[in-house]
């Protein structure tokens, strides 16, 4: 049975200025993404993967075209509504900087959970469950600088998942990790996708990581190919 549509992108274009040049980072991208997908964006550097993730995550706005999230046109949303959607329905995993350096793994997860309305009960239990799910229960009191790259990425996964988001957007989540840690993070994301039905959209260069995806969208020069 086909899952409901999460995202609908129609003729999305995005440009940015590099020096005196206008760079077309997205060119008429049209696609649909369904709930529960484990979707990979593949392509060389500069192909538009990160820009597409940013547009999907409401971190950047397209120059033209439309992005509908669960049927709602994101371009018509106020800044406040966009903040609310990111806070309640989205989780993010970035390539390197993911965690607030002065907070422990526990506090990094806890802070974003406490920011949700009506989330004050069982906070400790839910944070520990999230950390336990990514294998970081013993590192809960450690700060990012005391953790390995893999542990930091897993803490970011815990932070993204603790609020039960509709979608997790991950930009090259394994790029700064060695093979073993990279595989571990991907397996973790896959497990969360299968167990909790969370939609994962991630970009990667790594062919082995791509193999784990249900669907791969290849990008080149800002277009899906």
């Amino acid at each position: 049975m086909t899952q409901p549509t999460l995202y609908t992108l129609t003729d999305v274009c995005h440009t940015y200025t590099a020096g005196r040049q206008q760079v077309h980072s997205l060119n008429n991208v049209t696609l649909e993404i369904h709930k529960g997908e484990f979707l990979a964006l593949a392509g060389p550097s500069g192909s538009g993967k990160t820009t597409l993730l940013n547009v999907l995550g409401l971190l950047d706005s397209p120059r033209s075209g439309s992005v509908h999230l669960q049927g709602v046109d994101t371009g018509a949303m106020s800044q406040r509504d966009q903040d609310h959607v990111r806070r309640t329905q989205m989780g993010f995993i970035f390539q390197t900087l993911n965690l607030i350096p002065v907070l422990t793994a526990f506090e990094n997860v806890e802070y974003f959970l406490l920011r949700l309305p009506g989330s004050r009960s069982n906070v400790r239990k839910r944070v520990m469950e999230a950390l336990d799910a990514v294998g970081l229960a013993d590192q809960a009191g450690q700060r990012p600088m005391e953790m390995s790259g893999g542990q930091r990425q897993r803490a970011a996964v815990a932070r993204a998942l603790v609020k039960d988001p509709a979608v997790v957007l991950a930009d090259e989540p394994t790029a700064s990790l060695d093979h073993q840690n990279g595989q571990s993070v991907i397996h973790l994301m896959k497990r969360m996708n299968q167990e909790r039905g969370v939609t994962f959209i991630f970009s990667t260069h790594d062919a082995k990581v791509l193999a784990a995806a249900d669907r791969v969208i290849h990008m080149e020069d800002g277009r899906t190919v």
Partner: protein
Amino acid sequence: MRLFLMLQMALRHVFRSRRRSVFALLTISIGAVGLFLFMGFNGGLMNQYRANTIRARYGHGELSTKGYRGAAHARPWELWVTDARGVAERLKAIPGVRAVFPRLTFGSMLIHEETMLVAVGEGIDGVAEAAFFDQLNYVAGGDFKDRPDTIVLGKGLALGLGAKVGDTVSIYARNSRSEMNLKEVTVTGIFYTGIPAFDDGAFRCPLAVAQEVVDTRAVERFAVALTNDEGWPAFAQAAALKLPELEAVPFDVLDEVYYKHGVDFLNAQFDIIRFIILLVVFLGIFNLISMAVVERTGEIGILRANGDSRLDVALGQIMEAFTLGLLGGLLGILLGWLLTISVLSTGVPMPPAPGISRSFRILIELTAADAVHVVMLCTLTAVAGCVLPVFRATRMPIAQALRHA
């Protein structure tokens, strides 16, 4: 809850980013110390200047018959106070009055050997005045206290007469009946105020001598010493009720040309110096806080990506800057106070001031009001320093902020 979270995050940044916080607190506290000590020095200097003026000549103020002061009189004795003892007792009964000093100023000629000079004499109660007026600057000898038939001369007058301590001079004065009286007195001291008009033509002698040569039992005016330097307005009000025929004038009006104008001149200079110190402190703190915010642009990107609003982020940063400014200011006050009670406990040595032949020390006088002023200033500067960079960082597209990682 949201504000509590912001505050908790701000405090965690302050207490866990130790290197950055120590650097920030040092910068802010050093600025606060500089400003606080300068304000204390300024206060000490002004207080000493005021105390010197009060204890050199004027007391906290003087009273004379209404209409007497500020005008020349053909028959001044008609406006002198005849019941000197009774008036002095009534003035002493006013709360806050420490002592009352009757005085009598008169025109005369001084004669020493072959030299005769016109001079203005002032008859005073030597014993009572010596106990309070301890700042008159003597270059030779000292007060006559209770020694009868004595005199102290201004430095210029003594030079003109060729008189020195121990010499005998004659006071030649006209009384109210236009008769000339002559009185021989012994020089006990030579004073120097730095005011040529005074030093070149003034002398002091016991009140009894002045009354004898002028042939009166009256006094011209009363100098008043109070227990509290700030007590003049209340005293003047009480004196006006008790003795409505007298006019009370504070020392800063009596010595307007030298004291009041001097204070105004110094204050104007200090305001400029204080402004420059403030500017340096402001720029230091502003730069530091701005850099801290710029360094954290990536972190701001993470917060924004995960749903914190621009206001949430700005509030967090402002709370952090507020905390740093407050702690830095308090630390500066503590350091300033410790310096004041240790290495600066004996004050700052100063060269002789105008009108004074001896060097002196200015005590650093710290006040609670100055401390509050400095802490508020540090806190406001820190907050002001973060507003612009925070505004920029929160207006930046989130994707761009994340690239600062």
